[in-house]
């Protein structure tokens, strides 16, 4: 096609990066969040299925101790505030504030990992005791992997934001990271109920 086509519009004025649903990464993040949410839902379904198989639940063991799981819950819910703040300042492309937010979020992330380690210690069961132990460990482990990946992502972004790699697109990455952290927290609330409350109800 050597003949130049008929141009209906010139798009030079369009921006080269945009936040939220206007960018592809936002949709990509959403896609992976859906995938992981499905995995959580299925693991939870397996939990209830196995619960239906046995008359006493948990069988033999006492339920996980309240303390660390609840600490985790409070910590995560509290982390929503700095997270949303970081999201807002990232939308405003405010580098100084974004740096603060990222440092804070990295600290909180590492803290949640420490708490998670204590949670495993307080489960009162081993994965190879019985089906209950197995599913409990898998649920907690599944969420732990999400914690680890997101904390890792946050740390890398923090480093980037203090180097010469600061570009408009980086701020989009920050907002997507915030979206993902919101998901990790939202996933923890029902999981917490499943692991700590349900065994005490039945």
């Amino acid at each position: 096609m050597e003949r130049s086509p008929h141009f209906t519009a010139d798009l030079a004025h369009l921006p080269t990066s945009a936040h939220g649903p206007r960018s592809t990464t936002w949709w990509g993040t959403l896609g992976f969040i859906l995938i992981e949410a499905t995995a959580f839902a299925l693991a939870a379904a397996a939990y209830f299925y196995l619960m239906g198989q046995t008359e006493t639940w948990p069988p033999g063991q006492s339920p996980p101790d309240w303390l660390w799981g609840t600490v985790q819950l409070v910590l995560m819910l509290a982390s929503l505030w700095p997270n949303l703040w970081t999201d807002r300042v990232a939308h405003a492309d405010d580098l100084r504030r974004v740096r603060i937010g990222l440092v804070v979020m990295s600290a909180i992330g590492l803290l949640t990992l420490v708490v998670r380690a204590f949670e495993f210690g307080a489960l009162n069961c081993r994965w190879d005791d019985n089906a209950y132990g197995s599913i409990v460990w898998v649920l907690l482990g599944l969420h732990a992997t999400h914690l680890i990946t997101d904390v890792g992502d946050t740390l890398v972004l923090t480093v980037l934001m203090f180097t010469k790699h600061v570009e408009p697109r980086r701020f989009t990455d920050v907002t997507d990271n915030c979206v993902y952290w919101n998901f990790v927290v939202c996933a923890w609330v029902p999981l917490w109920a499943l692991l700590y409350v349900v065994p005490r109800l039945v």
Partner: protein
Amino acid sequence: MSARDTSARDSARFIRRDGPALGEAETHARLERTWATPPGLWGWLSSVDHKQVGRRYIVTAFVFFLLAGLLALAMRMQLAGPNQTLLTPDRYNQIFTMHGTTMMFLFAVPVMEAFAIYLVPLMVGTRAIAFPRLNAFSYWVYLAGGVMLWVAFILNVGPDVGWFSYVPLAGPQFGPGKRTDFWAQMVTFTEVAALAVAVEIIVTVLKQRAPGMSLNRIPLFVWGQLVTSSMVVFAMPAVMVSSSMLIMDRLIGTHFFNPAEGGDALLWQHLFWFFGHPEVYIIFLPATGFVSSILPVFARRPIFGYTALVLALFATGFLGFGLWVHHMFVTGLPHLGNSFYTAASMAIAIPSGIQIFCWLATLWDGRPRFATPLLFIIGFIVIFVLGGLSGIMLASVPIDSQVHDTYFVVAHFHYVLIGGAVFPLFGAVYYWFPKFTGRMLSERAGAWNFALFFVGFNLAFFPMHILGLIGMPRRIYSYPAGLGWDDLNLLATAGALILAAGVLVFLGNVWHSLKYGLVAGDNPWGAGTLEWATSSPPPSVNFVHIPVVTGREPLWEEPNGLAAVSGLRVDQRELLLTTVVDAEPDVREPSPMPSIWPLLSAIAVTVLFIGSIFTPWAVVWGSIPLAVGLIGWFWPKSPPDTPEPVVE
């Protein structure tokens, strides 16, 4: 040369956008410089061009198709007569397991994704797939998983418990050794790849459509791939969860499937079929996309019932999740529940019926041209409808209780999968081969290919309906004489050989046409969708100018060339993002350059997955190289992009 040209060229040198200011040749040259994949092995390994990755996917998937086909022939040889001892039971069990696993996980799903990877960006008029590096990564992971499984098989560590790996047979006590662990990890590999591709396709379709391609103008093939990808997102996690549970039961002593410790064997079946049934539609819906793309071109009439077809796609995708239990009718579940799944399973016949009718109507109202692609589509209708109808029989609890796990079911799903997916697939190869390679496949060989394929298929699989009804169960390595199964089995084996001959003709046709095939123009079939608006094979940039879409078959509605938009950069990889519903131009987003990191990350993942077959600690130490790979992948390359040029 005069001073005026030189000054013109000088000024032209600073133009970094396409548009009237820059000549066609110059635009083309600059875009080529920007988008071309670097030459040599390194370039080959680091390519992120969706067309190259798509081609690799297609070729690899067909290699696995041939390998699994050879296994099928081995089985047919063993079963050609009663009490044959060509294969030991151990070998036979590995072979039928590898056949099913390879066909489902390494051929059917990947080949459909492969066509999506190649065609969707072209059909929606964009320059690259979304997340091209993730795309390259997914291919390497898929390749590693497939190769791992086959190497294991060659080393006599092939899985031997069926592609469905029912526990406890696949569990730690009755599946000694590593055979089933390789199966479970292969699942992890292929699901990671499939999920990545699903996300890419969804985002490409939603955000990267050419200006004017509003939802009601999306080609039906793209609709099919969109629905399929959404199904992948919700179905594949089920099999990843279940296969992880299986491998944990086998390696670290969890008790998910151990009844003595509160587990349950049926939990596996629920999780597996919650994936396994949608899987069938994940394979079938893209095939309907092939049909809906090919039929109008050879009926020379726009598809009838576009809206009905799109709605049917969504209905199928939705219902597909509601009927996994019909694989478990004979496990002793409550009968009331079962009859619900009967209704749901039969209900899926309604959208399928609507699709069939729309295709027949298109053909009826058109002026058919019987080229090879259309032959395969007609073969598809003849075979698939029969498979669908036997599916209605299987949906009935009483009938299923007789034919479940017999050769009747084998016949049924081969009619549905080969008829419903492989026939359209071959039609699609004949149809898009000119676009992929720039050369036509031989029509004459194509007719032979179709005839042998069609006759061989029906000879091979129709008798199996009867075999099942007269009592022949699935997955038996041998059968006694005198049950009346002998000559029907012989007939089936003969058919299988004819089918194989058809495949050979196909291979010969491809091999010959690659060298000597007629050179195809941009649009040899006179089709109406965007992939035919660019050259064959397409340039690495896909479209020199982003086209503007004015209808469902733009090339039919704009016989004298499509309008285009200008203003995208020619010195950097840039995509045009549009709005989700109306495809209004919205953002010019950069697209990544080639990178070796996806391959390195894939290797890290491979080490982690294979290592974890032998020790759970591999998950810990294997995650370190993986982390390195991912950081290298996402680390911005300095120097940062050249500054945005001023708007001319």
